[in-house]
């Protein structure tokens, strides 16, 4: 499978995703933000970091970059797009995903391991997970507090467009296990046709058991190979 990782000035999880993809046998290319063409890609990853410093609203400048026009075209043609952390923020800014990511409820950057529950496993990203499986991933963000209108919330619930929700080790989802204040504990969502996934947690940080004692992120990438 051919993958491309978009690199913005200020991206800082680009190498981490590359390591994960290459470990899992993707043929990967790094694509600089000034490029105007994408290499042949089955999967495009927009990695975490602070694109353009995020001195404006997170992701706002990246959403206007050269290469994003191409990413939007590819997305509309059905290419698989994965936005992680800052990548999720960028996808929201482009309008490919709806809603908004506000500052964390405690107004502080938050980096910790959290449990998330797989809400929908009938898609290209999560088919290796069981439905309602609880996995452990790492979050590290300042603006990960997902918010959306009641109409849109109802829509993503009805159409099963919620990928992950924050929970405890037993899979219980309530305010107590919601690290950043996201509406309904939402940690990741799909677009209507489920070829785009935006998520705040970092699956690429949980691929090596020697390092983290946990390989819960592996299945997200291997699902894509299915």
């Amino acid at each position, binding site marked *: 499978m051919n993958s491309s990782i978009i690199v913005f*000035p200020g991206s800082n999880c680009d190498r981490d995703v590359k390591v994960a993809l290459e470990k899992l046998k993707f043929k990967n290319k790094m694509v600089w933000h000034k490029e105007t063409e994408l290499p042949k890609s089955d999967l495009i990853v927009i990695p*975490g970091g*602070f694109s353009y410093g995020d001195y404006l609203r997170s992701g706002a400048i990246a959403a206007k970059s050269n290469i994003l026009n191409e990413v939007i075209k590819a997305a509309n043609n059905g290419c698989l797009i994965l936005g992680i952390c800052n990548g999720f923020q960028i996808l929201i800014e482009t309008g490919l995903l709806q809603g908004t990511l506000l500052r964390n409820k405690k107004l502080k*950057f*938050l980096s*910790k391991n959290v449990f998330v529950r797989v809400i929908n496993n009938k898609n290209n990203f999560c088919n290796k997970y069981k439905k309602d499986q609880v996995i452990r991933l790492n979050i590290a963000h*300042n603006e990960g507090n997902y918010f959306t209108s009641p109409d849109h919330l109802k829509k993503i619930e009805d159409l099963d467009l919620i990928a992950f929700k924050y929970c405890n080790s037993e899979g219980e989802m309530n305010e107590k296990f919601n690290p950043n204040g996201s509406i309904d504990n939402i940690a990741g969502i799909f677009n209507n046709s489920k070829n785009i996934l935006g998520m705040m947690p970092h699956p690429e940080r949980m691929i090596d058991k020697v390092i*983290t004692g946990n390989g819960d992120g592996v299945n997200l990438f291997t699902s894509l190979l299915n």
Partner: protein
Amino acid sequence: MKITNEVVEKHGLKIEEYSKIKKLMNREPNLLELGIFSAMWNEHCSYKSSKIHLKTLYTKNKNVIQGPGENAGVIDIGDDDVIIFKIESHNHPSFIEPYQGAATGVGGILRDIFTMGARPIALLNSIHFGLPENKKTRNLLNGVVSGIGGYGNCIGVPTVGGETKFHKTYNENILVNAMAVGLANKNKIFYSKAKGLNKSVVYVGSKTGRDGIHGASMASAEFDENSEEKKPTVQVGDPFTEKLLMEACLELMKDNSIISIQDMGAAGLTSSSVEMAFKGDLGMEIELDKVPCREENMSPYEMMLSESQERMLLILEDNKELEAKKIFDKWDLDFVVIGKTTNTKKLTLSFNNKIVGNIPIEALSSEAPIYDRKWEKKKLPLKKENIKKLKKVSFEKSLIKILSSPNNSNKKWITEQFDQMVMGDTIQKSGSNSAIIKIHNKNKAIAVTLDSSADYCHAHPITGGKQVVCESWRNLISVGAKPVAITNCLNFGNPENTKIMGEFAETIIGIKEACEFLDYPVVSGNVSFYNGTNKKNIYPTPVIGAVGLINKITKPINRTIKEEGNIILVIGKTFGHLYQSVFFKEIYSLVEGPPPEINLPNEKNNGEIILKLINKKLVKSVHDVSNGGLIVSLAEMCFSSNFGIKIDKPKKLSNIFEYFFGEDQGRYLIEIQKGNLSIINQLLKENNVYHEIIGITQKDNFELSGEMKININDLYKLNNKWYYNY
């Protein structure tokens, strides 16, 4: 402008120093030249009060590739990999403007690392504040923590460890020390020494602004009630630009275009150009009109003394400018040839086609004043109080009070604001004996830790100096790492005071003794004097950053209890030393007597045997015993494990407070399986290591027979409460 005595003093120079300048110049300097002298001759840049003491430190062994004197120290970890690391203080700016002060502290130390060709792989910090009830503390704590996080998180280097302490001595002068650790190839280390004539001197990075002018001079004076007015001398950090600068420099370093490279840190363009030329025994010509400026009408004086961040000076091989510029263009960074190397051994500055400054390089560096300041010895304080005569207290309540005190509470509230996992190689993060970082794509790892013990150092600087080195050694050993080398950040008061100078001199003696004995060299460091306000000096606070090597990383060892029914052994002898302990301080508000003694042969022997046991896979978990003694360390082993311990009262020692809260040094706690007891007993006996069984792990309860029994989760909650309520 005429140089009057007042102008000289405003530049932080003494009148006799000014006379020396005139002699070296053979004339009166102009204002620009005076500014340059003040930047190079201040304490922060010249180490004039500390140099003769620092020279005595143990700085070389077979693992050291570069010791003190470069941007950072370099150690060999085998397979052509080297670790480059250093610690630096940013105390004064952080007290005036906590967010930017702390942020630029992180930025500065990162530049020291990637200047040498290393990709930074870990950040640590040691931050000391005044008492929590002091009205400034909350704002300073919030600002410093956000600033450290804001910079490290953005640039994408994990912040994996450190320490946060509160003490009244820092009420009016906080400490912010940041350490960076990088990984490089042994054959690709870059130095600051200039080489060759007529080579291009290139300015890269951010534009120069009016921020931070005379920052280094500010950091070389005590605070007074007008310190707030110094806000404009604090630099403003831009981690985004630093990220670009780092990537651009590392990209350029892949080929052979760079002869030498130096970051513009304290004293900016002045110190970088002078250091490069001095080390290469050369001169340098700079055309100041070419310096990229952020603001209009900047004068040569402002350009030379600005401490704007995220800038570097390079000297390039011939005909490499075009290729190099392409890389910096790609990253949208300035790249301007501003001068060349010469054989004049002078720093020659021109502006508008006129020479505006011309100073012999040696006058700025090797001729800078060096002081052998007078100092006083400190006597070992006497043991006065006796625990048996003090008011009786409850054991359980004492333990709870300590575990829920600001200094001994869980620091998650802080560490969760730092990205600890970015770069994907963090094996163990904050809240452990040491952090462990995997060497990318290899099967080995380094362990890193930061430690300080101001109360011990204040009581007796020689012992304190030894203790803090040993503490870092123990922290590395406890995660199965072989200690390799250290970096030190020496935070002290006013060196012109003989008592303070004595604290400094004796701390150095202590550090030196411990390093020599343990073959544990100092490879880099930083001295920060004048920490104090209105003649009130801080306690001597040397902070030691240490790096150890784990050759084969299979299953990392940590301090968390693993199983029920295992034996906990104490390694090292317990005498019950309560003077200068957390127990005396928190329970009786007593801070007196001598610090615990350091026995270096025992320290080495105990450490080596622990490492042997870990390598033989005979232990399940390890924790060193430090602040708060055995009982606090035992509780820490249980936290986050869901296991408790049933602890036995000692048979020999009569007083349980002395036994469990005593802070005798050189001790470790290990968890072992019952079946391994006899083989471990034998190994310890063969090596003459004192040890005793202290308890058995069990479900749920933390229990000391006949004294206390508490659910471990309840105890953990108490340990976490303070920060969230502050």
